[in-house]
């Protein structure tokens, strides 16, 4: 298949969106499902075909221009797609995982009425379309279009059950927080326009080295602000856990596998700029690390199954930023990929659980589910192992690559990163043990309903479980087997050789670190499993645990520092508007009226008074004549 037909990839989901959206009232649910999933599948197939071409050695990135989007003066922004190794990889992840989630959704959402079902699939298709646009864009504007598009779809999907106002609020929060980030992105684009006169990747990257470091730092920092919004990093991460209000497949698709990785993609894409700005790199690394740690600590004390996964997502995203910050772009992308698999798996598994529990999300009311849901149990366990970083599951490899690079940059990074990884292992197995082990703690009614999910749900689980298990082998580190890093080699034309920030660690150290991480992860996992299997964490947290359970009170902080003052300001402005600005305007009117009332008193009706005033007038004129110089 020709590279030129790349437009099919986003076009197919768009068609799916249009059909499902416009004819949602007349389509049957099965047809909707077929259209929704089928278009993504087709898209995946096309992506595979394209991938077939791209993976040929020596393939250089190609730009496929569809039409002129905006042309003003010297600034020309074509609607063009960038086809290269990086974007193709993402295409595969998005369409592949996307398809699985669509498939899963046909079953998971089956209880919805047909129009809403169709609406759901339309949104999902639109989301895939936006995400594809994001990764395919050959310039920052197209990227930005997809960027905002996924934000929108996230908004629509989180608020899918629009009757519930809390969900609506969560959706709104997601959109607005994303917008804050987008603003940074947008300003970065303007800076690029001013600096380079272009927003095309090729142009910008080619001239990057000639720009002043200050400007580049500003651009990269602003881009990173955008990334913090989209990828839920400090300080804009709070929307992501709230976004769990959406249907679970949405959480899987958007808030785990794809959308939130947009920030990683974008920074990886513009790594040329980041390589030139060490300051930003450090910031990215530190923010990533802090986010990873913060989210991990919060996840320790969450009881909502999806919330744990959400914070784990934030934490993992922090990892990826750490990778980006230390220059391990391949590692970051690698982690994106593996994370896509196991996090989608975990979310879908959680969805399966929730489905079986009749909508219950609180782990404290679960327990011992493996008895009823063997497939879910097993696949979920695979996911947990993978995310915990236990070899040879995929998470181990990708996480290790990042940690190794972090160590090379700064051992402190490594230390914190490792600690976070252990926390991850801990809370994941806490989750697993509480949910699947021990005895059932829910109601009779719920117990009665417990059942393994249908195949439309389990098949994606199985597929993802397999992927989560084996994907790690795409990126076997140099230390273990030279030249076995398939992914690294594949991405090399775009990202360049594996740049560990210039500092290479010795093979021995790397192996040592690897072993340390693996062993510790294993120990922590087992410990957590054993601990929570018998004594699930049911009590209300106290002390520091309460702080964690309440997410470090960050939401409250934001509320007090930003939302409330803004609200007060708005109220103040309303007051000013009414009383001062409009007050002045009305005051002028009233003044005229008042003046009128007073002035007409001059008209006393008495001739004597009139003549007197006339004489006074004459006097004034004469006095002016006498005393005022002209």
């Amino acid at each position, binding site marked *: 298949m020709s590279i030129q037909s790349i437009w099919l990839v986003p076009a197919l989901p768009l068609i799916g969106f249009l059909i499902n959206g416009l004819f949602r009232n007349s389509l049957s649910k099965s047809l909707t499902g077929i259209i929704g999933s089928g278009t993504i599948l087709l898209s995946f197939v096309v992506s595979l075909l394209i991938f077939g071409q791209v993976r040929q050695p020596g393939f250089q990135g190609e730009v496929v221009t569809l039409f002129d989007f905006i042309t003003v003066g010297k600034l020309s922004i074509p609607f063009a797609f960038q086809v290269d190794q990086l974007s193709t990889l993402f295409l595969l992840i998005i369409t592949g995982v996307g398809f699985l989630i669509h498939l899963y959704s046909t079953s998971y959402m089956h209880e919805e009425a047909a129009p809403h079902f169709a609406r759901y699939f339309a949104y999902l298709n639109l989301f895939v379309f936006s995400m594809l646009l994001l990764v395919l864009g050959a310039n920052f504007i197209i990227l930005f279009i997809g960027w905002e598009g996924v934000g929108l779809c996230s908004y629509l999907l989180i608020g899918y059950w629009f009757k519930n106002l809390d969900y609506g609020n969560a959706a709104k929060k997601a959109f607005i927080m994303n917008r804050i980030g987008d603003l940074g992105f947008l300003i970065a684009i303007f800076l690029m326009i001013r600096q380079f006169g272009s927003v095309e990747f090729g142009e910008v990257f080619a001239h990057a080295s000639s720009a002043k470091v200050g400007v580049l730092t500003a651009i990269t920092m602003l881009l990173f602000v955008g990334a913090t919004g989209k990828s839920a990093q400090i300080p804009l991460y709070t929307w992501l856990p709230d976004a769990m209000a959406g249907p679970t497949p949405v959480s899987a698709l958007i808030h785990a596998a794809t959308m939130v990785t947009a920030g990683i993609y974008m920074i990886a894409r513009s790594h040329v700029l980041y390589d030139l700005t060490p300051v930003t790199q450090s910031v990215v690394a530190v923010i990533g690390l802090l986010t990873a740690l913060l989210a991990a600590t919060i996840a320790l004390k969450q009881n909502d199954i999806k919330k744990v996964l959400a914070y784990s997502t934030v934490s993992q995203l922090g990892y990826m930023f750490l990778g980006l910050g230390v220059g391990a772009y391949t590692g970051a992308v690698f982690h994106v990929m593996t994370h896509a698999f196991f996090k989608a798996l975990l979310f879908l598994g959680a969805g399966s659980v929730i489905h079986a529990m009749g909508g219950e999300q609180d782990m404290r009311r679960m327990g011992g589910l493996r008895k009823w849901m063997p497939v879910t149990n097993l696949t979920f366990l695979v996911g947990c192992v993978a995310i915990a970083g236990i070899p040879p599951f995929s998470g181990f490899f990708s996480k290790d690559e990042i940690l190794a690079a972090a160590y090379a940059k700064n051992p402190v990074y490594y230390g914190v990163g490792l600690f976070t990884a252990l926390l991850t292992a801990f809370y994941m197995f806490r989750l697993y043990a509480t949910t699947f082990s021990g005895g059932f703690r829910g109601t009779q009614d719920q117990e009665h309903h417990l059942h393994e999910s249908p195949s439309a749900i389990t098949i994606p689980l199985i597929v993802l479980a397999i992927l989560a298990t084996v994907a790690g082998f795409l990126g076997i580190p140099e230390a273990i087997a030279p030249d076995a890093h398939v992914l690294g080699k594949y991405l090399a034309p775009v990202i360049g050789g594996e740049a560990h920030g210039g500092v290479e660690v010795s093979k021995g150290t790397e192996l040592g670190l690897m072993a340390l991480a693996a062993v510790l992860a294993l120990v922590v996992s087992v410990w957590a499993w054993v601990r929570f299997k018998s004594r699930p964490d049911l009590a209300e947290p106290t002390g520091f645990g309460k702080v964690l359970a309440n997410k470090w009170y960050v939401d409250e902080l934001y509320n007090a520092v930003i939302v409330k003052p803004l609200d007060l300001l708005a109220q103040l402005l309303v007051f000013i508007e009414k009383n001062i600005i409009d007050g002045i305007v009305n005051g002028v009117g009233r003044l005229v009226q008042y003046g009128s009332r007073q002035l007409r008193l001059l008209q006393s009706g008495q001739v*004597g008074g009139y003549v*007197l005033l006339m*004489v*006074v007038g004459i*006097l004034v004129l004469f006095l002016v004549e*006498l005393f005022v110089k002209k």
Partner: protein
Amino acid sequence: MGITQVLFWFLSILALLSAILVVISKNPVHSVLWLIMVFVAISGHYILLDAQFLAIVNLIVYAGAIMVLFLFVFMLMNLNAETEPQKNRWLKIAGVVAGGALLLVLVAALKKADLKLQVAEMNRGDIGLIHTLGVTLFKDYVVPFEISSVLFLSAMVGVVVIGKKE
């Protein structure tokens, strides 16, 4: 000081005093009489200024006809006695002050005019004579003269309109 000057001063003072009395007399009939006195004094000035025709006309028309008309009206209304209740003293004071101030500013404005050398010549010239005036009036001023008849016509019509009983 020649006789002319003496007469000038006498007439001037007479005019001013009479004028003031016109204003301050409580009895309207007295006001009328003092006004006639002013007119007589002014006519005297006219004679001093060799404006004999105007002096005569002034006496006949003003002091004679017009003031008599005023007197008639007073008689008609039976208002020969004091009829103004003294209210609104402030307006009165303001009136006097305003009048005085007007005098002041007018004098101030006109004093700046350097007219020391200009004199109103007396005892010479024939322009005040009825002959000279008549010739000019019916030659150069015939148009305004005729036009003033329109004024009289309209005054006549007006008085008829106003005075006619309905």
